[in-house]
């Protein structure tokens, strides 16, 4: 089965700084999802990418899918405390999503 590798596993940044989280697959991605999870809570859907080179933005969060459709990046501009949490990428399979291990983001004041 296809595996998604996220990097870094954890990230600590100072409030106001930019950051990038990566999600890499060994095979072509036919649908890539980004979710955010606060500790002890459910996942919140952020964005879905399907086309090579596609880029979507939601407030200060931008996600891109590379042309080969094997890597996606999530970029946060001018990070805020509300951005803290676990970010997960997920790949669309026939009937289900397969998730990466997640990236834990901490924002320091």
């Amino acid at each position, binding site marked *: 089965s296809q595996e998604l590798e996220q990097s870094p596993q954890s990230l600590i940044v100072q409030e106001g700084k930019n950051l990038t989280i990566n999600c890499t697959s060994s095979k072509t991605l036919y*649908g890539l*999802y980004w*979710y955010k999870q606060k500790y*002890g*809570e*459910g*996942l*919140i*859907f952020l964005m*879905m990418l399907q086309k090579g080179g596609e880029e979507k933005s939601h407030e200060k969060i931008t996600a891109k899918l590379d042309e080969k459709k094997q890597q996606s990046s999530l970029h946060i501009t001018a990070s805020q405390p509300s951005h803290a949490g676990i970010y*997960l990428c997920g790949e*669309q399979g*026939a*009937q*289900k*999503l*397969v*998730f*990466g*291990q*997640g990236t834990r983001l901490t924002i320091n004041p």
Partner: protein
Amino acid sequence: SQTIHQWPATLVQPVGSPLSLECTVEGTSNPNLYWYRQAAGRGLQLLFYSVGIGQISSEVPQNLSASRPQDRQFILSSKKLLLSDSGFYLCAWSVIAGRPQHFGDGTRLSIL
């Protein structure tokens, strides 16, 4: 708008006891339904999914079972809980496969 409800929010159970977690979706018909488990320090693991009433697909053989007695109701059960069943259980729904899944708030299950 669609909403998903999952309960209880937290549960502490002794080893060997039964389990029943419930998930309901409102505002949509015939959704795809999913049960995931998130163990400490690990990613989300899909346990079961359902594309219709009475239709359950199991992803991982284990001590758990799932049922869908009604269109928008999904239940996760166990006859005898094991220590390894501890974790954070999440229910999710989607309109169809290939569309975003939307998650409930989760149930934190601790086995003593």
